[in-house]
């Protein structure tokens, strides 16, 4: 019964779209909700909305006799020469009746998926990134610009890559040694077998030989975003959900939910536990979802966790696997290779290692790696899906066509990975640099009275709860805004990461140079 009323609400929601859709929808839904939830009981609760919807349809039919309106009102004129700059809102069309089936102004409709993307206000995470890219700090040309601490990309070792490319120009130029025919024709979308072998070897090398990877279980994609989305499409139907320990990195909302129709149910982790994942929390979240009639298809973790930087212990991972086995669901583990270098005496354990040593059904485990991120070449866009499930692999290989790595990059990556001496050196030097920067940055924050979680990865998870007033999300966002506008520093507030405790911020320090750190600290201090 409830389903019925929700459907009619959804239908009404669909009928009024357009730039002014938000407010108009609210006006429609609120009174109906009152009816549905009122004391009318199940019968009235379902009949009345249906009846209203029926009358609404009659009204619409009377207003517009056929689907084809012979005289649609002229839609907004498209500027011929210069359209509005990107990011700016389009001209708001005049508000017409909310009852128009074609949305305000007779405009042609886009899908519900598109509408939810359009209407969704950007979270501070994205706003911060955007503002920073519009006004980026540069020591010489823009010293008052915003310093980027919100992007977890590692640029500390770009120079190593650059040097390698300079001395291996054959690989960076096409058309000379590399036959055009070879690279520009169709390569397998999911990666050539030669490249997969090289990737498998690389991943094993980085994990210091603890795990060996099977090349045939690898699917390459244009980054981790499509990799995660692909797995969501393969493991869940629209309306299903994944359990995700929070805080979790903001992009996951987009990657898992936008186009798939799949939901995320956060499983809150707390500072009292050092933000580690407890099975009790998983069970609780699972049961709550079940009561609401939501089918959980899996758990998504990141390791080290992003933004909290936790290295999941063996125990945590075993417990997770037991939980998943009990509920017969999947696990997606988003792992960072560069962190596998057992950061500052914390052990990194890959899911791949766990399933290789125990009698678990490996088919339920799927791992995503951001290869290009770990190689300090984010623009290259190479992600890896590693799975044991034949069906998921087959489907992923076919889906890779929608987001595949160009042959140019496949070729480049292959050459780089084959140079094992370079790779070994890179891994070692990169690790040293990240550790050093982490020490300096965390030390700097400590001097300001800000404590951080003991972390892995290219960011630190800092507790600024003592500096926010009031102790709430609002207080946190106030501080975030001050940091951005006054301190000219872009950090990621915990609320964008669905953290249940206010006041935590993620700072990424791998876009900085050592000499920038005092400046960064000074700017942060400005607003404390």
């Amino acid at each position, binding site marked *: 019964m409830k389903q019925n009323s929700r459907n009619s609400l959804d239908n009404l929601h669909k009928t009024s779209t357009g730039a002014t859709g938000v407010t108009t929808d609210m006006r429609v839904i609120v009174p109906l909700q009152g009816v549905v939830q009122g004391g009318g009981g199940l019968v009235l609760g379902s009949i009345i909305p249906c009846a209203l919807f029926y009358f609404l349809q009659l009204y619409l039919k009377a207003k517009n006799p056929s689907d084809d309106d012979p005289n649609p009102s002229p839609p907004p004129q*498209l500027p011929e020469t210069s*359209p509005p700059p990107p990011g700016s809102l*389009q001209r708001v069309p005049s508000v017409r009746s909310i009852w128009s089936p074609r949305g305000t102004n007779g405009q042609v409709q886009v*899908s519900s*998926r598109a509408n939810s993307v359009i209407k969704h206000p950007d979270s501070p995470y994205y706003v911060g990134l955007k503002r920073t890219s519009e006004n980026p700090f540069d020591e010489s040309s823009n010293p008052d610009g915003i310093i980027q601490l919100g992007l977890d990309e590692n640029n500390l070792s770009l120079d190593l890559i650059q040097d390698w490319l300079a001395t291996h120009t054959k690989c960076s130029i096409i058309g000379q040694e590399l036959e055009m025919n070879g690279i520009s024709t169709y390569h397998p979308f999911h990666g050539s077998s030669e490249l997969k072998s090289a990737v498998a070897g690389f991943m094993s090398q980085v994990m210091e030989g603890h795990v060996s990877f099977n090349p045939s279980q690898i699917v390459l994609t244009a980054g981790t975003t499509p990799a995660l989305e692909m797995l969501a499409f393969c493991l869940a139907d629209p309306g299903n959900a994944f359990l995700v320990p929070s805080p979790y990195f903001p992009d996951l909302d987009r990657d898992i939910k936008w*186009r798939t129709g799949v939901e995320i149910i956060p499983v809150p982790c707390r500072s009292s536990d050092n933000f580690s994942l407890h099975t009790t929390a998983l069970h609780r979240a699972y049961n709550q979802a079940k009561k609401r009639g939501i089918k959980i298809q899996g758990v998504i973790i990141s390791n080290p966790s992003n933004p909290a930087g936790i290295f999941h212990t063996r125990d945590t991972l075993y417990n997770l696997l037991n939980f998943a086995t009990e509920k017969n669901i999947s696990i997606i583990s988003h792992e960072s290779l560069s962190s596998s270098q057992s950061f500052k005496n914390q052990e990194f354990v890959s899911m791949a290692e766990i399933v290789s040593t125990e009698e678990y059904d490996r088919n339920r485990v799927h791992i995503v790696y951001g290869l290009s991120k770990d190689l300090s070449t984010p623009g290259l866009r190479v992600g890896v899906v590693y799975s044991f499930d034949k069906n998921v692999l087959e489907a992923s290989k076919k889906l890779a066509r929608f987001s595949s790595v160009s042959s140019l990059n496949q070729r480049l990556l292959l050459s780089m990975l084959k140079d094992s001496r370079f790779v070994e050196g890179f891994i070692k030097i990169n690790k040293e640099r990240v550790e050093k920067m982490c020490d300096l940055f965390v030390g700097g924050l400590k001097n300001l009275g800000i404590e951080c979680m003991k972390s892995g990865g290219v960011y630190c998870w800092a507790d600024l709860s003592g500096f926010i007033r009031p102790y709430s999300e609002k207080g946190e966002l106030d501080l975030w805004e001050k940091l951005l506008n006054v301190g000219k520093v872009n950090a990621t507030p915990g609320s964008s990461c669905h953290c249940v405790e206010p006041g935590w911020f993620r700072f990424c320090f791998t876009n900085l140079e050592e000499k920038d750190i005092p400046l960064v600290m000074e700017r942060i201090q400005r607003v404390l």
Partner: protein
Amino acid sequence: MAIKIVKAQPPVELSKIAVSETHGENSPYFAGWKAYDENPYHEKHNPHGVIQMGLAENQVSFDLLEEYLASNQEAASWGKKVSGFRENALFQDYHGLLTFRKAMASFMEQVRGGKAKFDPERVVLTAGATAANELLTFILANPGDALLVPTPYYPGFDRDLRWRTGVEIVPIHCESSNKFQITPEALESAYDHARSMNMKVRGVLITNPSNPLGATIQRKFLEQILDFVTRKNIHLVSDEIYSGSVFHSDEFVSIAEILESRNYQDSERCHIVYSLSKDLGLPGFRVGTVYSYNNQVVTTARRMSSFTLISSQTQFLLASMLSDKDFTEKYIKINRERLRKRYEMIVNGLKKAGIECLKGNAGLFCWMNLSPYLKEATREGELEIWKTIMEEVKLNISPGSSCRCSDAGWFRVCFANMSEETLEVALTRLYEFMDRWRRDRHVLSM
């Protein structure tokens, strides 16, 4: 020895998408590829192997690209330029490099002989046209809605437009009797058919020049299609991936031109898909674009392009090449010329063998008519002859039924993905086959 009894657990449930057949890779279109993979033709090493004529790739103008890159090393080598590299490697914004978007817009203008203008701010980059078509479908239609697509159409659409999106394709039937043109009657009929199945129609998707017909859509029909979608207040997607492969530049009319001539009135329902895979012969680079006249679609597509980004390196490399107007002009001209020659070669060769083709003027393939030679004018009859051609003649061609063609007996034959010599071999094989076939028929009828 103790026997460990393992309690059998049902396997983890996968999604419908993971197990569905909507990827369509079990159709004959793809089966032919398998046959080729197992026994590929090679001039010297395997002269009796299967010749691949089912792959619409453009290899006729590689030398021009190679020549350009050899003499423009600065552009090709992105490792050297210090500032350029850093700029490239850093956070990849889904807006894409402005220089590259400008280059794409200008290239698209050149391909249309300057008859339409393109705004770089409306160019949304995707990793290939496959992704562009899927992306648009996600944005324009809800699961269960319908897109109207004229038949015959590119077999990959069944997968690209439907698999993950949950959107349906309702065919607009085009007949050989009127050269497969898209008539207003066919449009209305498809629309009504969709409505009768309770599907909401969200748009029409045309490919212009058409795959597999190898012909451009005439202005008159484009105007009618535009009027139709306006009347129904739905979208129009024009996949113009072969726009640079038209043999005579004045024979191609882009929807962009028509919109310009109408002063962009009501253009917000129009979207163009383009890619460099066919015109430049660079499928491996995965460069596609959604060009939309609708601001909401541009914004949404741009954000969703995060799922299918082109690497900065690729953008950087191609930006300089595509901005070189002298080069692109020369390339477009010579490429057209060579494709036209190939087309004439194959059509004449087929004619000698007694096979007619639809009069084409674009693309990397011809639309061959074998209906007079079918045992029965049905899909089975068509597949029978297709199988024979694959197994005896060792040619992989694409049967019309894979393209949802209403008339049986039509085949798409690609001619640009091989050398002229190989094409000769293929034509000779076909000639001999048809000769044998006719003699056998003659004997039987005596």
